[in-house]
């Protein structure tokens, strides 16, 4: 199937990936090409087939409801682009 430029604009917005206007056609062409490949799935009769969401059918393992993690914020924040007073810094969202 072939995507429109409007659809491309919607997808890149959802995916939070900026594309330049001159890239739009190349992105559209490549995505359309991949979607043409996966369109083969539509013709398969899957009536009554349970979707397989995982490679092995095992249930979710539960752990005891108690604190097991140590406080690692300092080491984890040491690799962040911008941190101040234990907080991640991002551009101002509210004026």
């Amino acid at each position, binding site marked *: 199937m072939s995507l429109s430029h409007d659809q491309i604009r919607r997808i890149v917005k959802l995916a939070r990936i900026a594309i330049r206007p001159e890239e739009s056609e190349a992105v559209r062409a490549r995505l359309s090409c991949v979607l043409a490949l996966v369109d083969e799935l539509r013709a398969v009769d899957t009536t009554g087939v349970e979707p397989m969401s995982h*490679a092995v059918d095992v249930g979710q393992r539960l752990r005891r409801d108690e604190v097991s993690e140590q406080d690692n914020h300092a080491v984890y924040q040491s690799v962040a682009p911008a941190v101040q007073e234990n907080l991640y810094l991002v551009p101002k969202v509210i004026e």
Partner: protein
Amino acid sequence: MLDATLAELSAALAAKRVSSVELTGAFLDRVRKLNPDLNAFITVDRERSLAQARAADAKRAHGDAGPLTGIPVALKDIYCTKGQRTTCGSRMLEHFISPYDAHVVEQLERAGAVALGKCNMDEFAMGSSNENSYFGPVRNPWDRRRVPGGSSGGSAAAVAARMAPAATGTDTGGSVRQPAAFSGVCGLRPTYGLVSRYGLIAFASSLDQAGPIARSAADLALLLNVMAGFDARDSTSLDRPKEDYTENLEMRMGGLRIGLPAEYFGEGIEPGVRMAVEAAVAWFEAQGARRVELELSRTKLAVPAYYVIAPAEASSNLARFDGVRYGYRAKEYSDLVDMYCRTRAEAFGAEVKQRILVGTYVLSHGYYDAYYLQAQKVRRLIAQDFSLAFEKCDVILGPTAPTTAFEIGAKAGDPVQMYLGDIFTIPAALAGLPALSIPCGFDEKGLPVGLQLMGEHFSEATLLGAAHRYQQATEWHKRIPKETPL
């Protein structure tokens, strides 16, 4: 020493014919010599590796050495290593220093193995040629104009070129087996859940599995013994008794039922690949294995199903790269959303962006049922076909890939052509089955051909045993690439 098996290295270390420091130094020297050309490693830290080697020598002096103690193992750069750069082949993580070790890295360290360096790979493990790395393509040691396969291309090339005796990889749709085939080495994708993914940067979580790359099936068994095992930090890790994968290596071949799916020997297979694989099949039959003709008629649906499921999961997993908590952040932006969008636009490569966009689309409102749910249903059908097949046979044999290594750039313009090359490795990944690739010959261009063995869940010992018996009788896995002589 550079050409020795893990068992031989282990014996040499035990007999004090060589120390781990000497051995590690020799491999590091080889990396220094060959890497400028092959580009198989992204990060090498000589002092870090030698410190681990000294610790391994001390461990041995204390008398608590295991089979891997003192042996250097290269790590795909998707494995987090504490205090060391872990890039995942991406600009996004170019300067990322991991705050912790992956479970497999811990296990290898506990066994006394020496981490030799971080291997090049397709960005975020998305690719079949290693051309998608931010750090440049890896070159195939058999022919430098060609790709080594991907996404664990650096790991496979490093082992092929004797820059490392073994390496780790990850396999989402074939990323251990296909580069092993293209580079003339051995690679195993274990049963889903057998090896913990804790500390592996996630691509498609219902498919990702870690596996070893080495030069023989016996070496794969030694590595799997250390890599496999329950880990509560990976919610998909399976809690089951530990196995010794070296125990069954001398298995009897008589009566082994080998399944041959017609679809794996049909059109689109290069003649050189077909000839080598058919000769291997004939060898198994000559040993008393019984041939079982199979049909896996949905094989051709595996590629489209995978290229819905994997991008969908990737679009979700890679949402974490937003320029806030780790990794790259764009220098200029107008507001928060613009920061996300520019960060991701600047730091993800073209293939990664394309897969995120495909994944976003198939999960978006109005398309979820038609694509994602339908792909999961087709996945179920493919898995059921394998279950039926394994009632009739013990091992399925076929080519790992329809072609041998192609030239760098040959498929770069056409994503679908690249994807279709994964047709024989994707099905086992979708079904969560173990599968391995071993060298079984060379084509008319002198390029290695990979033989794939697939088995039922937890049949690693059978696959490794069958592969080992084949390697006792053949020399394909012992050949050294002519472009990287010792």
